[in-house]
């Protein structure tokens, strides 16, 4: 597969950043969530650009199909009056300090990234077929797969238990 040109990456990056920044700035929680879904879709596009379609589809299935649904359900279940009610920043000072901290973090990260020279690595790998991934998952990475599966099962059961309504022993009082 010929790696797509740099402008494509730049466009994906701009779109992802724009939607993420908007999502973090909007007052309306549902709008934020929907915009963040768009960011996740652009991240999937990034994986496609990088030549990992399996990853891209997995990202869409999990983030658009599952996590966004859980988030939206949680928003709807925990609203008191109106989901469109703006969630304001706690205070202006807090917003400014958050911006300062994250801006500082970005400055440090960007400096580190730009300082770093990649060691001349292997040539770009061939697109891994699903069969390769499957072989790796069932072979060397089997433990990781099993552990992830157990973690997922346990957390989902736990989440269901936590979220299910508590039966009050005596509701008469």
């Amino acid at each position, binding site marked *: 597969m010929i*790696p797509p040109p740099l402008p494509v990456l730049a466009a994906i990056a701009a779109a992802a950043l724009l939607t993420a920044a908007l999502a973090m700035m909007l007052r309306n929680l549902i709008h934020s969530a929907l915009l963040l879904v768009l960011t996740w879709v652009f991240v999937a596009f*990034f994986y496609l650009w990088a030549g990992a379609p399996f990853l891209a589809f997995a990202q869409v299935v999990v983030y658009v199909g599952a996590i966004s649904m859980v988030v939206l*359900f949680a928003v709807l279940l925990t609203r008191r009056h109106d989901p469109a009610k703006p969630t304001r920043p706690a205070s202006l000072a807090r917003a400014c300090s958050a911006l300062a901290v994250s801006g500082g973090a970005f400055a440090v990260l960007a400096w580190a990234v730009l300082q770093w020279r990649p060691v001349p*690595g292997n040539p770009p790998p061939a697109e891994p077929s699903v069969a390769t991934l499957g072989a790796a998952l069932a072979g060397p990475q089997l433990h990781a797969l099993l552990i*992830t599966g157990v973690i997922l099962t346990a957390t989902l059961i736990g989440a269901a238990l936590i979220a299910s309504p508590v039966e009050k022993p005596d509701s008469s009082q």
Partner: protein
Amino acid sequence: MNLDPLHLCLLLSAALFCAGLAGVLSRSGAIFALLGIELMLNAANLNFAAFWRHGQAAAPDPILFVLFSIAVAAAEAAVGLALVIAFYRHRRTSRLPAASRLKG
């Protein structure tokens, strides 16, 4: 300035991470904090794909790592939002400052 694709990917990842960080720090809504954390996790995943793309890592391992990371992110979202719902049931709010007391 060197606009190597790898550098661009890493800068994108750093920017997304910081956007998520700013979101988490500036808001007091629990669900919003979770959204920010998801964004930060995604930003971290981007790095793996970028390093894999540019031949800095062994063949399919970064991809697998991202897959596991996505799975764990799903689990995290499920548990986090279940906690939010359970907390909301007790306090009728989902704002984090209200969660400073452990006693129900």
